């Protein structure tokens, strides 16, 4: 014997608002995300000294556009790649606290940071970049 609960048939009277799902925003001090490490071999020590070349050495002749994509040399608005790779620690500091990568102008910094953000597995520096993303 089951109780048949008849939901309100007066749909004309019930505004959509009263049937909205509740969304809890959570406690201010709580963390709501668990981040899972990829299985990479970087240790905590090597994160500080691992390097990210901009761009990948196989494409060293290309320029870096402001959005981080690689473009033909001389493309307006794009900058040449960095002469030296950046240290993982420097990249992490910039991405966490802002500021500029060492030795860069504002224009270069924007292009390089966006390039680094777009790194994919298989591209030089990806493992280093993924390591600096590790939550503490």
């Amino acid at each position, binding site marked *: 014997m089951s109780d048949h609960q008849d939901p309100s048939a007066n749909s004309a009277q019930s505004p959509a608002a009263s049937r909205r799902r509740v969304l809890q925003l959570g406690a201010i001090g709580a*963390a709501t995300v668990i*981040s899972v490490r990829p299985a990479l071999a970087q240790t905590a020590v090597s994160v500080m000294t691992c390097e990210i070349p901009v761009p990948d050495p196989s494409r060293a002749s290309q320029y870096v556009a402001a959005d981080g994509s690689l473009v033909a040399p001389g493309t307006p608005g794009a900058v040449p790649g960095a002469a030296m790779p950046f240290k993982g620690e420097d990249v992490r500091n910039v991405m966490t606290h802002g500021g500029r990568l060492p030795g860069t102008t504002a224009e270069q910094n924007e292009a390089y940071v966006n390039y680094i953000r777009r*790194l*994919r597995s298989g591209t030089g520096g990806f493992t280093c970049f*993924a390591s600096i993303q590790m939550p503490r």
Partner: protein
Amino acid sequence: MPDAAPDPVYHAPPAATLLRTPLDLLDAIYDRRSGLTHLVGEPVPAILDALAAGPASAADLMQRLADDYAIEGELAALRARLAELAALGLVDARAL
């Protein structure tokens, strides 16, 4: 009158960047840029869906969410969630 820092505007990453899969109580979000997988609970999926409609400040986002949900919690809690997501790279906090 003291100058308060303007509220950041939060941007969802480009559509192809995050791969999301619902897992009963949680969503799994794989970030192709970092290679990290994040397990997220309420209200993160709702926040990401609301930002997909376009960038928003915390206050604007609160309005957007209130259109679809009965919100439990203050704006300060939403700011805390957004700060957490920005720190993980799941949203971008920008001046504009």
